[in-house]
């Protein structure tokens, strides 16, 4: 497998870019640093594509089944003969697929940023952070063991924090970056405990060994972890649930999603890369990576299903009411990731039953293209209008034809209208849900209608609605560096669905035959079209109908507009309960008891030294006298007392 060793370059090139731009960028490269970032990433993307080509078409397949290939493995920290932390590169269908997605979307975002971020004071720093993120994300997807994935997991968290807080002179951006970091960090605590539980019982950190040991129901490892119980559930369930909490935090699943809408404070291309296409699907990727273990534990899978479903549904409702275009897209991302999650939840290991897994990965793949396209399109719009609010937009279709057209394609794709990419992947997910659980299917179907509705609400509000008020200093649609990614991603969003994905990515590596069942497709497409029609009626031209509808729904509308008061709930819990009941007593103990003990000790020492300091009179002869007196006393003692 030596001809795979060049894969190490895929993550290392962005790392090198980060180091070079981070250290020297602002001083020596300035606006040239964008070109450096793009060049490095272009090479990375080409290497990823080549890897994918080799893996999928030349030597990944053995007897019709895709193998896991360990391209590189090296022991990093050896604690004892049995325990070591390794660094390595794993190639299997999902990691190769993610390599392509991450490097491709990152390349598009790098190119787009050339125009979007032009003239920024910290242009080089921006590219340095972007490279750091790309490095971490690529490292995450090729991790061979659960500890390596955890390290890169934290690294993407840090780079996300840095990029959200990029405009650090804006208090809201600083608050948003802190919120994102703290919430995901809190979830990562669960992940860490989950890692410790799973690896303790399986006695390994390596993914493959871990999966083999914990899925073989006869092995001692499996019996150990499934027979031990804690608060009514087996330790296996606990371990998997905790790992899933980590994934849910990163993937903005309900109720840990609160950081994602606020994360929109970052530059828009960053939102396209991190908070739409790559980092937020890390949770899905994690569950998919450990899917064989999840599939032996029914309860953990149920949690994945219902958390995913709840996120998909709630986010879709909230998205219908928001007016900040990036927040609409953020909730839409959350909703689509919810789809991926519950698709994993309804899947089973192997064969036809693994359709949900394949659908989830397929949706991850297509979603990366159309959602990053939507964000980049929104970025282009914001670049022109200088506002995030849809009230300031409208009628932009004539001013920015390319953005308009690509945005329309992305909206059709996410709404699940054939023949665009989203239709195919959503189809597989809905079919898997239909086969497994009718309730999940029903909610998912309704959500897909909602998705179409809010996406077209967004589309009409930006591009139709009213006449554009012409800016006196109108600078056009943007440079070619901004249009080119839109065109490329538009093409991908239109055709990515035709990739026979089920031949490449399945639970067991063997190809899965899927057919488009027209009778089954009718329902989701019908819901999608209904959603679009409703949005057309309400939003195509500015009128009073949307307000009337909002009034009819009254309380529901208001609470959805306020994001169901979840932020307020968190604030209530932290401020009123945690701060008052835990924080205050802890502060009191610290101030009075801990500090008190220390102060008492210091006071006693000071008093004693005050008392005896007179001995050091500074008179040499006094010292000599004490010394002599001591000698005499010792002499008396030795001669007369201790004979």
């Amino acid at each position, binding site marked *: 497998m030596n001809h795979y060793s060049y894969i190490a370059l895929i993550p290392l090139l962005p790392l090198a870019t980060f180091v070079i731009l981070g250290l020297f960028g602002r001083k020596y490269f300035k606006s040239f640093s964008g070109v450096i970032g793009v060049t490095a990433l272009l090479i990375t993307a080409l290497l990823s594509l080549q890897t994918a080509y080799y893996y999928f078409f030349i030597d990944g397949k053995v007897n019709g089944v895709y193998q896991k290939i360990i391209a590189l493995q090296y022991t990093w920290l050896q604690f004892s003969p049995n325990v070591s932390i390794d660094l390595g590169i794993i190639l299997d269908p999902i990691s190769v697929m993610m390599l392509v997605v991450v490097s491709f979307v990152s390349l598009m975002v790098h190119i787009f940023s050339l125009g979007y971020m032009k003239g920024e004071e910290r242009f080089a720093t921006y590219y340095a952070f972007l490279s750091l993120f790309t490095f971490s994300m690529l490292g995450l997807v090729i991790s061979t063991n659960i500890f390596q994935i955890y390290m890169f997991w934290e690294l993407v968290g840090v780079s996300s924090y840095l990029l959200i807080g990029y405009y650090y002179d804006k208090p809201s951006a600083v608050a948003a970056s802190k919120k994102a970091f703290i919430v995901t960090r809190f979830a990562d605590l669960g992940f860490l405990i989950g890692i410790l539980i799973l690896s303790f019982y399986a006695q390994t950190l390596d993914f493959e060994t871990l999966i083999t040991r914990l899925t073989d129901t006869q092995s001692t490892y499996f019996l150990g972890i499934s027979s031990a119980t804690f608060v009514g559930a087996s330790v296996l369930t606990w371990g998997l649930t905790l790992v899933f909490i980590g994934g849910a935090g990163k993937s903005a699943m309900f109720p840990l999603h609160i950081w994602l809408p606020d994360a929109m404070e970052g530059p828009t291309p960053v939102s396209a890369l991190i908070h739409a296409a790559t980092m937020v699907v890390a949770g899905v990727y994690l569950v998919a990576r450990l899917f064989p273990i999840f599939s032996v534990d029914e309860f953990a899978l149920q949690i994945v299903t219902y958390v995913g479903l709840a996120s998909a549904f709630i986010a879709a409702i909230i998205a219908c009411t928001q007016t900040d275009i990036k927040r609409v897209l953020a909730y839409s991302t959350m909703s689509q990731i919810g789809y991926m999650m519950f698709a994993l939840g309804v899947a089973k290991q192997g064969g036809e039953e693994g359709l949900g897994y394949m659908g989830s990965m397929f949706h991850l793949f297509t979603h990366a293209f159309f959602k990053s396209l939507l964000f980049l399109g929104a970025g282009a719009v914001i670049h022109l209008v200088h506002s995030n609010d849809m009230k300031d937009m409208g009628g932009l279709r004539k001013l920015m034809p390319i953005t308009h057209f690509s945005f329309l394609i992305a909206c059709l794709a996410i709404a699940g209208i054939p023949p665009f990419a989203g239709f195919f992947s959503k189809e597989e997910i809905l079919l898997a849900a239909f086969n497994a659980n009718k309730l999940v299917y029903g909610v998912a179907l309704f959500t897909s209608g909602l998705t179409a509705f809010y996406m077209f609400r967004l589309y009409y509000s930006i591009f139709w609605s009213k006449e554009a008020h012409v800016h006196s200093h109108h600078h056009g649609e943007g440079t070619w560096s901004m249009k080119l990614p839109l065109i490329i991603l538009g093409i991908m969003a239109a055709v990515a669905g035709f990739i026979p994905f089920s031949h490449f990515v399945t639970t067991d590596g063997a190809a899965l035959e899927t057919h488009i069942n027209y009778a089954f497709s009718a329902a989701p497409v019908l819901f999608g079209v209904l959603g679009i029609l409703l949005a057309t009626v309400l939003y195509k031209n500015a009128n009073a109908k949307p307000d009337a509808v909002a009034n009819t729904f009254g309380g529901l509308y208001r609470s959805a507009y306020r994001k169901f008061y979840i932020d307020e709930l968190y604030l209530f819990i932290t401020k009123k309960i945690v701060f008052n009941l835990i924080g205050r007593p802890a502060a009191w103990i610290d101030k009075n008891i801990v500090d008190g003990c220390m102060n008492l000790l210091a006071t006693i020492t000071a008093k004693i030294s005050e008392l005896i*300091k*007179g001995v*050091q*009179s*500074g*008179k*040499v*002869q006094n010292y*000599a*006298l004490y010394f*002599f007196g001591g000698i005499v006393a010792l002499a008396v003692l030795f001669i007369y007392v201790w004979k």
Partner: protein
Amino acid sequence: MNEVPITHILFVSTALFFIGMYGLFTRRNMITMLMAIELILNSVNINFIAFNKYLYPEKLDGIFFSIFIITIAAAEAAVAIAIIINLYRSHHSIDVEDAGELKY
């Protein structure tokens, strides 16, 4: 003729020791204190020589020790006088009472 008994010699050395001690404790002049220390050291030398001669006449250990002490006393006097000169330069006095900056 009779030999001088050892007690006489020890008496001289003890007297010398206490004269030195008295000088050390009562004088404030550093040179005088240094001289007092020399007296104490010499009383020890006398003890060494006396015990060597009366107890182990065939050995030379005590004599060696006194030679060491004389050497070290010379070195010590050199160092002490250097200190005293420096003190005089900075304080314009060689009175120990005047050098009290380092007390509490």
